Structure formats: C-alpha cells, structure tokens
C-alpha cells in the first residue's frame, strides 16, 4: 500500500519547516505510536520519552520518508519501534519484561476517544481476530518478534526450537496474517 496523497503533502510541508503540518502528523499518529511503544516497553513514562525522541527524529529525517515504500504511519511506527528496541537493549530490565511479552493482555491504559480512535478500535479488533486465527506457535513467534524485538535466532533460543522451524513459523504466520487482513 503506497502512502495516500495527504501523507505526501504533509511530509513535503514538514520538510519545508511547516510546524502546523507536523502538528497534524503528530496528532494523527502519536496515539497509535504511543500504544505500540507502551506495548513494547511496558512503562508509560519511558514510552512517552521514546515517543518524543522518535517524533523529533521524524522532524529531522522527514526527507527519508519514501511514499513508494509505505504510509507515513508505517514509517513512524517503524522508526519508533526501532528506538524502543534500542532502549530495551540498553535496559537491564529486559529479562523480566520478556516473560510478559507474547501474551495478549487486557490493556489498562486510558480508553481511546474520538472518531479516529473509534476507527482504530474497529481496526484493532480486526487485527486481533486475524492474530487469533493463527496457530498459537505462529502467533507467539510474531508477537515476540514484533512487540518483543526478538530476531530469528533469539526466537529460536527463547522458544527452544530449531532456527529453521522458527523462520517457518514467522513466515507462514505473517503470510496468513496478510491474507486474513486483506479479506
């Protein structure tokens, strides 16, 4: 999916130093980015800190956004996720936190509000159903990778499974997820 024209326009204006355009980008995407960061980092204060770093980076590096490769939101989420994982790597608390990753937890954060957020609720339900439709071992591998930051070899060690098996689980699971989300 290529970026909609609105993304391209907002990115162009941001690159020109238009703060109002960037404020629109922030207001539109920060709630979902913060949600992802909170899921990865499990601490609201740290997630908020990383969110600010990530959006400052986005302001500086907006020229790197390539609409041919995806939407502005996917670019922002990827960048923020990468910063969160960097943070985790430097955190000593990782061992304890990993125990909690991979299981769907009922969120305890504030309820989302507004029309956009309602739409997100609907999308979220769709994503959750698509994930729930996967075999448990594929779902677990994907969640540990995406929200836990584990790579193939780290997954193999964590799940005590052969590397090839883990790669297959991720690939098959993601392929099924893609199809489920497209249907």
């Amino acid at each position, binding site marked *: *999916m*290529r970026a909609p024209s609105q993304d391209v326009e907002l990115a162009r204006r941001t690159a020109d130093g238009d703060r109002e355009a960037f*404020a629109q980008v922030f*207001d539109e995407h*920060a*709630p*979902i*980015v*913060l*949600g*992802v960061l*909170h*899921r990865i980092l499990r601490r*609201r204060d740290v*997630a908020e800190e990383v969110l*600010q770093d990530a959006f*400052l980076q986005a302001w500086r590096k907006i020229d790197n956004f390539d609409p*041919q*490769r*995806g*939407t502005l*939101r*996917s*670019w922002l*989420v990827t960048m923020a*996720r990468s910063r969160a*994982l960097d943070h985790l790597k430097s955190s000593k608390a990782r061992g304890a936190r990993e125990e909690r990753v991979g299981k769907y937890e009922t969120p305890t*954060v*504030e*309820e*989302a*509000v*507004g*029309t956009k*957020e*309602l*739409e*997100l*609720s609907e*999308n979220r339900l769709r*994503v*959750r159903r698509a*994930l729930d439709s996967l075999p448990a071992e594929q779902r677990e*591998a*994907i969640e540990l*990778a*995406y*929200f836990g930051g*584990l*790579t*193939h*070899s780290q*997954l193999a060690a964590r799940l005590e499974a052969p590397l090839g098996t883990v*790669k297959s689980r*991720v*690939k098959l699971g*993601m392929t099924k*997820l*893609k199809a489920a*989300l497209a249907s």
Partner: protein
Amino acid sequence: MSDDQTFSDLLPAYAAGALDADELAEFERLLAEGGEERARELAEWNAVSEQLAQDAEPIAISGSLRADFFEALDVETQGTVSLTPKRKESAAETAADIAPANDNRLPLVLVASLFVAALGWGLWTQSQLRNLRAESARQIEGLELALARSESEFVISQQEVERARAANRIVGASGVRTVSLGATSEGQALSARSYVDPETGRAVVFARNLPDVGTDQTYQLWFLRGGAPYSAGVFAAEEGQATVLVDDLKEVEGIQGWAVSIEPQGGSEQPTGLIVLSS
C-alpha cells in the same frame, strides 16, 4: 535462489521485525539494488506491519505530553536564545576600539564609554520591557480567548468521550455480533459494519466513504425484523465517515439485517429514498 526470491522470502520476517543482523543487511542490499517492484512489495508488507501495530491499544496523548513535545521541537528548531544583548557587546567593542594604548585620556574615555554603554543598556532594557509587556498583554488576551473556546469544546469533548467509551464497550463485548454492510450500487467504495451487543441491546455502526448528501437530506439507519424495516436513527457523515450508536434494541435475536438510506432531513417512518448500504 534468485535475488528476487530471496527478497520476497525475507519480506514477511522483515515486516515482523524478526530478521537477524546478517539477514537484515542482505535485505537492505537487495532493496537498494531493486527497482519499483521491490518497493511495491515492501509497501504491501509495511501495510501489514502497520496493521499489526494496531494490535496495541492506542493511547490518547495528554495535553502536557503534547506541550512538552512541541516545546522540545521549539528548542530543536530555534536553538537556545542568547541572554546577552548584542547592543551591549557593540557598545563595549566601540569603547575598546576608540581607546588608544597608553593614552592619558584613557580614564575619561573609559568613563564616558561606560556611561554611554549604561545609557544605551538602560534605553534598550526599557524598550525590551515595553515590548515584553505588550507581548504579554497579547498572550493573555489570546489565552483568555482560548480558555473560553476550550470550555465550550470541553463539553463537546466529554460527550465524544462518552460516545467513544460506549462504542468501545459494544465492540469489545463478549458475544458481540458483527454484520458487514456493502454498497448497493456497483463500483461504490462505501461500506459499513455493525456490532450488536446482545447482552445490553446496544449497537454501533461504523460507516465510511459515504458521499455527501444535499443540505435537505440525511442518512438514516434501519434494521430489519420480521421482514419489516425499523428506524435506528438519522445521522450525518463527517468527511465521509460516521459512527452511529443505537440504544435499547429490542429482540436482538430477531434482527435480520441492516440498511442505510438517504431520506429527507428529519428522517422518514419508512425508507423512501435511495438505499445506499445493506447487509
């Protein structure tokens, strides 16, 4: 395996963030070498990754977090402000410039220079204070206006919050029943989905890509029971989207389907206009 196959093979794990460092390096090499087709494939998988992100509960951004961020952005874009007035530096430089070495008039010149500098500094400070006062008055006026506006928006926001919470409760209810509504005319992108909580008899319908209707017209939601349509309320679309909450649905078991029609402003007792969506 060809480069294209390798690239396609690595894409799902890339989207999941599972590639090891060597795999990631290979992936990035192939992406850099590749053309539009690889960019297109990547965009498809980035969309999956983006949707996967939505499995995380979005968190509303607090006013203080937003303010903190934009304050940090201000520092980023404007840099730190020097507290040393440049005019003072200029005056000091001037005094230094006009004072020849070993001149017996030096003390007098220095005193005069200091006097001029102090006078200039005093005038500059007074002028700055006047500007600051005027700017503060403007800011206070702006804040008062913003406060008045915020107070009225707050009431609206509270209603929105209540609506959002109600919709979230319905969507997340156990046993929720979902029905998709599609466009009745071919080639139209509009769609909707209804969620009914049989426990409470409440429903929410999310509709999107609704075309604009005339000012004397409105959308009306219907549910079908026993083959007959019953009105579930009229609604307006905002930028093609609408969220309709329905309270107190009786006999949820008997609901056979949903439809949306365009009716005269105020709604109709029975559908009279064009039915644009139906299940």
